[in-house]
């Protein structure tokens, strides 16, 4: 018996929930970013799993997850650049101190 798609989905779900919790609660912006990466990875697992076990198995899931990785890489690069610029101005990377939208 091979591993069912449900198992993969459950792993992805747990990973997603852990990432979500981290993204909502961690104070350090870099850790928040990492958590978001975790969520993206969970999505990728789903995509690849569906590519093999889904209703219409095809290679498209792989390609899509590659695109996701690329975009995630770009996102991380830009986000870290923003963080560094912010850190230079405000001397902090704590997200709960970044509430200048309110003022």
């Amino acid at each position, binding site marked *: 018996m091979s591993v069912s798609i449900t198992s993969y989905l459950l792993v992805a779900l747990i990973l997603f929930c852990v990432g*979500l919790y981290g*993204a*909502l*609660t961690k104070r350090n912006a870099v850790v*928040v970013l990492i958590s978001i990466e975790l969520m993206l990875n969970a999505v990728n697992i789903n995509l690849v799993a569906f590519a093999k076990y889904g209703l219409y198995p095809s290679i498209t899931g792989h390609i899509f997850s590659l695109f996701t990785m690329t975009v995630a890489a770009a996102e991380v690069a830009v986000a870290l650049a923003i963080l560094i610029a912010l850190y230079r101005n405000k001397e902090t990377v704590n*997200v*709960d101190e*970044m*509430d*200048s*939208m*309110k*003022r």
Partner: protein
Amino acid sequence: MDTFMQYAWLIPLFPLFAFIVIVSFGRQLKEGAAAVGILFTAVSFGLAVLTFWQRFQEGATDYRFSLDWLKVGDIVITMGFEINQLNALMLLIVTLVSLLVQIYSKGYMHGDERFPVFYQYLALFTFSMLGLVIAPNLLQIYIFWELVGVCSFLLVGYYYFKPEAKAAAKKAFIVTRIGDLGLFIGICLLFWWTGSFELTQIFDSIALGKLEPWMITLAAILIFVGAIGKSGQFPLHTWLPDAMEGPTPVSALIHAATMVAAGVYLVAATYPLFIASNAALNVVAYIGGFTAIFAASIGLTQKDIKRVLAYSTVSQLGYMMLALGVAGAAGYVAGTFHLMTHAFFKALLFLGAGSVIHAVHTQNVFEMGGLWKKMPITALTFLIGCLAIAGIFPFAGFWSKEAILGAVYEAHRYDLLLIAILAAFFTAFYMFRLFFLTFAGEPRGKHEAHESPGVMTGPLLILALLAIVAGFINTPYAPVFGDWLLNGEVGTIIEDMFGTGEGHAAAWLQIVALGVSILGIVLAWLMYGKRSIPSNAIPEAMPWLYQLSYRKYFVDEIYHYAVVVPLGWLGYLLNVFDKYVVDGLVSLVAKITRGIGALHGRAQNGQVQSYGAMVLFGLLLLIVAITLTAQGGGVLGIGQ
């Protein structure tokens, strides 16, 4: 030959145009506003003279013009104008007095900061009053009736920075409003019963007997209530003396010559309605008579020169009402005649008083005195006015007052005759008390009085001339005016009802009236001129009587405690209710809303993670909602 009468509708429009011009360019015109007002009113006056002259021609007929204004179902409401004898006469009086007052005001109001505003109001008032007197239907009358009320309010409150003036303006407006309400109800009832606002149609309905007697009585009395309010008859007279807080030219124009006479005019204009009901006529007569003697007795003791004149106005208006109320052609003629002569000599007296006030800067007669030498023209014209109002031969007041007495005598109303004669005595006394206190004796105040400028004395002289000669148009020997006045449609109705009354007193009555007036003058001279009778003899002998008169029979106090205070309490209670119940509910809603808002405001804390949690919460709600509504279960309906 109706050419001028056809264009009579232009008469009110000139002052309206002046009003618009002064409103638009008042700031630029400054005191030139007077010229605009005078010019346009003069044009109106010219047209009014021509109209009057034409109406006065032999064989002239009433001119009536109307056009449809509103069509409500089968009912057509029209607007238009009418020129009959009464209207033409009123047009003449109003334009003339308005013109003279505006000329006079140029001097009196000189240097006032709101000079153009004053002329705005005057022009608007002139327009409204002229519109009132040419209105052919009750609706139009009512519209202009309210407009003159507004103008009166504005002009009484002209010195709005004085609290007394503010209070007086409010009082004038509110008290006349009570009367206006009566008039309004009366108009509504008449419209309900006859289906028309047109005076002529209402008269026709009455003539055809379409209305029950009680309906006529009720409608007539309600219309008379309007007249009571406007003409300051008892018990709504209290606003008129207070209205003297306005500038003196205003008192002369509005509160002596024209607007307060509107009540008398209204009764005269709807006279066929009144003569159809004896009860209504009696109400008019007795209220008029009572007001005449009541106000005259208050006038005996007042110290403010303008208030004496104000009570005198109330008294004289009561006289007119009395004349109208005793019925008959003679009463109608006498009342209208007195309306005209009174307009002239009362405007004269007020303008004279204004001239005095302008010179000495006080209104208290006990601080005047000795002005005869310093202000000869004012003094002379004032004397003429006093003689006229006291009814001394051959001044205007003599003829009109004698006509009233004659009408009352002919109607065999001896109780009213007695009241009228007594009121005439009082009138003569207090007018000459005023005259002697103001002009005779030694100066009592510290003031440098000097004669007023020509622009002020000019109108005085014209009015004085009119006060002398105006009476001669209706002497018992040549009742030109009376014959003319009764020559129209209304006159025909009256004559059908009562027959032509001669309306002039027997010779002995003339002598009695003259004697009583002279007695009053002599008494005033003895007390205040020669001072052979100490003027405080009566107050000391009968202090309660003096107080009663001086405090105006405590009518103001009675109103205050009977009406104002209970209403104040009611208002207070309602205010408490409003504050704690209504406002409580409102502020409860506000507090709840604000609380929810504060909650949301706290949610907007600018922290991304909180927003993220909120988004997640929303997503959860969405998922739950979709799950619950999706048929057959399965998240997002997958796998079915």
